[in-house]
């Protein structure tokens, strides 16, 4: 649905986005994660045809953002970082205006605006002036504006900024409910948000892609955690770790006993999933297996390691 190839944006003295490539499948929610100033907004602005890339291509639903901008714009809904609102307009009037410029047929303008307002919980402020709304309401009017023409792709720049906790939860549910019918790219620097909503993510730092992939792939480390009990109960930590050390690709085994069960951590260097082998060994030894998980790295650790590494590189 979205195909980005070597997208680059240069300003006079800086490179804001440097050869960014990724692709998004139809119906997915992709998190665009990065520290402030990493180039998230610039990338989104290029995807929405707000500014042309200096180099590289991007296409949305098969239409090139530079060559066929009108076709692309018809198919995207965009919520910029500051919601693009006219404070002197009433909510309903604003939504109808947006529906018209997005090309919604005149007969459907009122109905679509009301639907979008209802979906984003702003129906109750329909005839209020936008300038008089609270920040949470404004943000939701911004979201209603983005979905009003039922676009195939939604591009949301920090959609939950400025919300209270309840609104954050509601908005997350709303965005999740929009996935499937819409392909969603959302940028954020809030990790919980990505965890709660996104299926895959792109981590961007200093204008470059640090890593990308599905949530599961990125956070899985190819190791395992086991919890076992030993029937005769007379083994040491060395005895417990020894059978695993000989497996090819294993570079470290630690066994600890915290009272009841033994916990064994196995680290590997290969990409192979060793869990079946580990289970066989445990059973072969006659131990009881209570738990066998692949070890995973938390998103926070991953994010910090990727973005601080970038910072060090820049210093050098």
């Amino acid at each position, binding site marked *: 649905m979205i195909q980005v190839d070597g997208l680059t944006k240069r*300003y006079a003295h800086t490179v804001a986005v440097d050869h960014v490539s990724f692709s998004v499948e139809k119906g997915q929610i992709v998190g665009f994660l990065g520290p402030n100033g990493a180039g998230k907004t*610039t990338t989104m*602005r290029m995807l*929405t*045809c*707000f*500014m*042309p890339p200096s180099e590289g291509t991007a296409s949305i639903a098969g239409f090139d953002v530079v060559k066929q901008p*009108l076709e692309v*714009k*018809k198919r*995207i809904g*965009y919520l*910029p970082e*500051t*919601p*693009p*609102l*006219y*404070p*002197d*307009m009433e909510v309903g*009037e604003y939504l109808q*205006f*947006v529906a*018209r*410029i*997005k*090309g919604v047929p*005149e007969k459907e303008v009122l109905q679509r605006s009301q639907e979008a307002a209802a979906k984003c919980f702003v129906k109750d402020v329909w005839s209020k002036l936008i300038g008089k709304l609270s920040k949470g309401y404004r943000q939701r009017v911004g979201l209603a*504006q983005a979905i009003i023409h039922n676009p195939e792709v939604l591009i949301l720049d920090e959609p939950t900024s400025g919300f209270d906790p309840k609104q954050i939860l509601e908005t997350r549910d709303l965005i999740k409910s929009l996935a499937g019918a819409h392909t969603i790219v959302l940028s954020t620097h809030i990790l919980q948000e990505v965890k709660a909503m996104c299926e895959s993510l792109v981590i961007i730092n200093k204008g470059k892609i640090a890593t990308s992939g599905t949530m599961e792939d990125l956070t899985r480390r190819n190791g395992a955690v086991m919890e076992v009990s030993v029937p005769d109960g007379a083994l040491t930590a060395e005895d417990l770790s020894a059978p695993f050390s000989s497996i090819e690709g294993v570079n470290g085994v630690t066994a600890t006993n915290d009272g009841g069960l033994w916990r064994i951590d196995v680290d590997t260097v290969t990409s192979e999933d060793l869990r079946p082998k580990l289970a066989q060994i445990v059973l072969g030894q006659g131990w009881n297996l209570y738990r066998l998980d692949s070890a995973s790295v938390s998103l926070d650790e991953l994010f910090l390691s990727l973005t601080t590494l970038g910072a060090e590189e820049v210093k050098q």
Partner: protein
Amino acid sequence: MRNVVTIARKELNAYFQSPIAYVLIGAYAAMFGYFFWSLVYFFVRASMQAQMPGRTMPMNLNELVIRNLLGNCGVLCLFMIPMLTMRLFAEEKSRGTMELLLTSPLKDWEILLGKWVGAVGMYASLLAFSGLNLIFLFAYGKPDWKPLAVGYLGLLLQGAAMLALGMFLSSVTQNQIAAAFSTFVLLLMLWVFEWMSNMDQNVVTEVLTYVSLLRHNESFIKGVLDLKDVLYYASVSFLGLFLTARSLESLRYRG
């Protein structure tokens, strides 16, 4: 075409949703009313003097009242137009709504044409209010309506051209005050180039006299519809719209 109408309607509504429209209409009505009242006062006094024996002179409402009135209106434009155009793009840019317009399936020319038409509509409603005063002339006198209509057409064309230039200056900045002041200075310069006609004739003074806004308004006010002047205002409007289009394009590149 529908997009142009949508944008134009939005612009026109924006004037009336903010105090700008009411302040301008009020101020314009007050100034126009004062001009009208004083011109009619002099006209009445002159006509009484004309009744004295030995001092006969032809009295003509069109020449003595309407012509001066419309001339003054042209000067008022210098002050009104910057206030109408300053917000057109500068406000959208500072509020971030430019992002909405530029990421909607609109062509640049639809956006700027819509905005210009909206501003011309606002200006036309100012002119319409001034027309209320003239009802009295028709009620108590017999002015010729044709030169009056031509005069108003001239004011409208002149305003449209000035609005296009003002819109361009609004599109190059985020600051409304900067947009308004630069528009005022540009229009004032174009206005006073008229003085060049009294200087030594050479190429520079002739060209500058020709581009003077005032110069081309004069024949309209006299009730003379000259294709040359219509073309002048049309080309200034086109220039303003064209420059705005280029400015929007560069905005995309500079971000």
